[in-house]
């Protein structure tokens, strides 16, 4: 239904003219997020300067019954910030202040448009840091992290965004402003902060986030180890866990991903090795030393063919550069690719990788694997050529891999979210009653259904449509973000 002229006038009048964009050429810049296959041009984009402006924007939408979608940096990979046709986008990009750094209580109060990395940069001088580290952390915003419950490479030990947020100021879909959470782990009643975190922008808009900061560890040890097979590398991960060690990170790459990464950034990985592991430990020196010795012994026991220990912060950075470059680098060995995000119980890693390889063979497509081995979070990259007409097959394979993860007892998504992309797969993981109760949660926050409708939960309208081919996000083309 086209936007009613009266509603349009009321919404564009809610904020000063320089905070309103409704020219069709300029609103097109907001038509997609990091999942570029889906595009919808919003009717109006509101770019308020402060929390009060967000309240006014939401109220105007609410009064006029017009759907709105909140947007941070637009780096999300599941279409969570995809606009609604004839609806409004509320961009949080101007809410960029770090309001308070409370060193004594190890927390900071930040606006939603502050980037993940800016928080750590601002508090590093006090020996503190913000732990969740999605690989888009240079550009992704904390408001987006809250919406997606973002993880990163270090969440095996340190947890996700939900474990690092004390409280949130939230504009509810009716325009009222509430605080969810509090100053300590003690909450007053049901954990509303917890259900809001990871709700993908469907329950309201965050205008202020109080994040928990951690003391930087005394030492960090990182190693890169090659193995004769993915299965061998998997055994190493199992043995590390069985030894009672919780590494800060355990990442695995297969031969195709290594080849691509090396070609792109020359980080010192061994081209041709079937599998490589990155293991990182951190903590007090004595603790780290004793655990690191154990990890090295475990690597040797399982036939490690090369062990490289980072001898300096630069060498550590190089190892991580190789790991983080893998996604974008795949563009060097394939004209097109889909990024998948699924989770399996860690003990089923070898099995899922074999199944993925078999499925790839069957589809006649190559799949590169990069994953957070410690927590079973896979990022298979399905390589294809649109020019050769492989798009549909690749898309089917990618979707089948996510659903395979569910079949093996895992999840449709470990960190990229459900958004638009996987809403139609939700019935593979949840039953009708589960989804109906999730819908009730949504109704409690948004009874009129205007806040980011069509995301997370499947709808018949949505599930009849198909996405287009992957196109690089402008930020990705500029080399600012990676697909992870």
């Amino acid at each position, binding site marked *: 239904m086209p936007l009613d002229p009266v509603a349009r006038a009321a919404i564009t009048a809610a904020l000063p003219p320089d905070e309103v964009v409704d020219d069709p050429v300029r609103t097109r810049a907001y038509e997609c997020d990091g999942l570029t296959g889906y595009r919808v041009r919003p009717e109006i984009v509101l770019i308020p300067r402060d929390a009060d402006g967000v309240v006014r924007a939401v109220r105007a939408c609410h009064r006029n019954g017009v759907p709105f979608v909140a947007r941070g940096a637009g780096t999300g990979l599941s279409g969570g910030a995809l606009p609604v046709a004839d609806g409004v986008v509320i961009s949080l990009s101007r809410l960029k202040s770090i309001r308070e750094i409370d060193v004594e*209580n190890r927390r900071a109060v930040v606006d939603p448009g502050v980037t993940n990395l800016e928080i750590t940069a601002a508090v590093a001088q006090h020996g503190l840091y913000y732990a969740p580290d999605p690989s888009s952390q240079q550009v992704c915003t904390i408001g987006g992290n809250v919406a997606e*419950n973002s993880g990163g490479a270090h*969440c095996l030990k340190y947890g996700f965004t939900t*474990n690092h947020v004390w409280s949130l100021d939230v504009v509810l879909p009716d325009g009222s402003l*509430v605080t*969810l959470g*509090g*100053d*300590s*782990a*003690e909450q*007053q*009643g*049901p*954990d*509303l902060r*917890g*259900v809001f*975190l*990871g*709700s993908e922008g469907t329950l309201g808009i965050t205008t202020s986030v109080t994040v928990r900061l951690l*003391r930087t*560890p*005394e030492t960090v040890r990182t190693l890169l180890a090659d193995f004769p097979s993915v299965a061998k590398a998997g055994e190493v991960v*199992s043995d590390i*866990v069985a030894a*009672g*060690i919780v590494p800060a990170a355990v990442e695995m790459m297969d031969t195709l991903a290594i080849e691509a990464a090396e070609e792109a950034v020359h980080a010192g990985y061994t081209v041709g090795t079937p599998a490589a592991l990155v293991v990182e430990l951190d903590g*007090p020196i*004595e*603790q780290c*030393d*004793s655990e690191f010795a154990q990890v090295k012994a475990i690597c040797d026991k399982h036939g490690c063919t090369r062990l490289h220990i980072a001898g300096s912060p630069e060498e550590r950075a190089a190892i991580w550069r190789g790991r983080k470059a893998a996604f974008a680098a795949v563009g060097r060995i394939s004209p097109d690719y889909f990024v998948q995000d699924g*989770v*399996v*119980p*860690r*003990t089923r890693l070898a099995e899922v990788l074999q199944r993925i390889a078999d499925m790839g063979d069957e589809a006649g497509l190559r799949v590169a694997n990069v994953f957070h081995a410690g927590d*079973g*979070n896979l990022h298979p990259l399905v390589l294809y050529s649109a020019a050769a007409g492989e798009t549909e097959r690749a898309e089917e394979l990618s979707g089948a891999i996510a659903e395979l993860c569910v079949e093996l007892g*895992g*999840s449709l*998504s*470990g*960190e*990229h979210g*459900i958004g638009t992309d996987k809403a139609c797969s*939700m019935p593979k*993981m*949840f*039953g009708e*009653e*589960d*989804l109906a*109760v999730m819908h009730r*949660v949504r*109704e*409690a*926050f948004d009874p009129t259904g205007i806040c980011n409708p069509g995301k*997370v939960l499947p709808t018949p309208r949505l599930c009849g449509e198909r996405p287009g081919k992957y196109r690089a996000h402008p930020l990705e083309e500029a080399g600012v973000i990676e697909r992870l």
Partner: protein
Amino acid sequence: MLDTAGPVAIVGAGTAADWAGRLGTVHSVLETTGLTGVITHNPGDMTVSVHAGTPLRALQAEVAEHGQHVSFDAARVAAGATVGGLVATADAGPSALVHGSLRDLVIGTTTLLADGSVVRSGGHVIKNVAGFDVSKLLHGSYGTLGVLCEVVLRLHPIPAAVGTVVVECSLGEAARLAHEVLASQLEPTAVEWLSSGRLLVRIDSTEEALPARLERLIALVGGSVSDPWAEHAELTRGRPGEALLRIGTKPSLLPGLLERLPVGTVTAGLGTGVATVSLPVGSVPEAHAALHAAGGTSVLRTRPVSGLDVPAWGPPPSALPVLRAVKQQFDPDRRLGPGRFDPWEI
């Protein structure tokens, strides 16, 4: 649930029957203590799913055979508290400083609602963002939103070696020392002050590293190594004739609040800002007001007979309309746990 009508109390082991608002009149009692036992435990995945009526201590004993545990140490566990009861009452112990509370350790739940709906959320993997995290709403719900039937928990390795340094000192001195410890890179698992005049700092470690880590800790704060946790657990129960209050605030504000209130027994997490204190029944409203003014939270845990009508909660949070809306969606006939959030009228 569907075979009964009227208000229902959900009861686990009964170790927190008095906590939060006083239970109103109920027509039925639904006991979860028959829902026991581990459903699946795959040691390699470090997750376990369990029926919610299982006492946590029984679960701990079972997974301990594999060198694993739920990183959770609320004192009530020793009294037989069930997994579901601990989640519903949002209980936590000293190691919440590092491991968080059960809201951080629960990765999935299956819950029965008043209308007979059964909802699963989360799953069996620690990293999972699919769907709304309905489990979070059950944490701290005090039996007012649904009956937890199954809970999936993340496990951690049992630390190979644990040591606690005890320093005899006043609260003021403890606050200063806690600041030093938390600013260091010694990574304590718990930092608690007891009203018996002792600061406890716990280190979880490998065998090899523990002696050196404790030595560095003692060099920083003094004191000596001992095992004072039984005393800690005892103090969290308060004392006869007094009310027991659970409070939470910014850690820096906690010592000042404790000094201003007429507290009896105290266990205070100087890194978490969470404390359990006893105080005269007549002082409970004053304590609620003081905590609210400081931006903190407070909830009554137990009340003596002389204080049956003392308010369990302070002023309501700004999100009260959302709490009411959630209740309306989950339990529109208001059957579950009447009175638990009085005086808020949720």
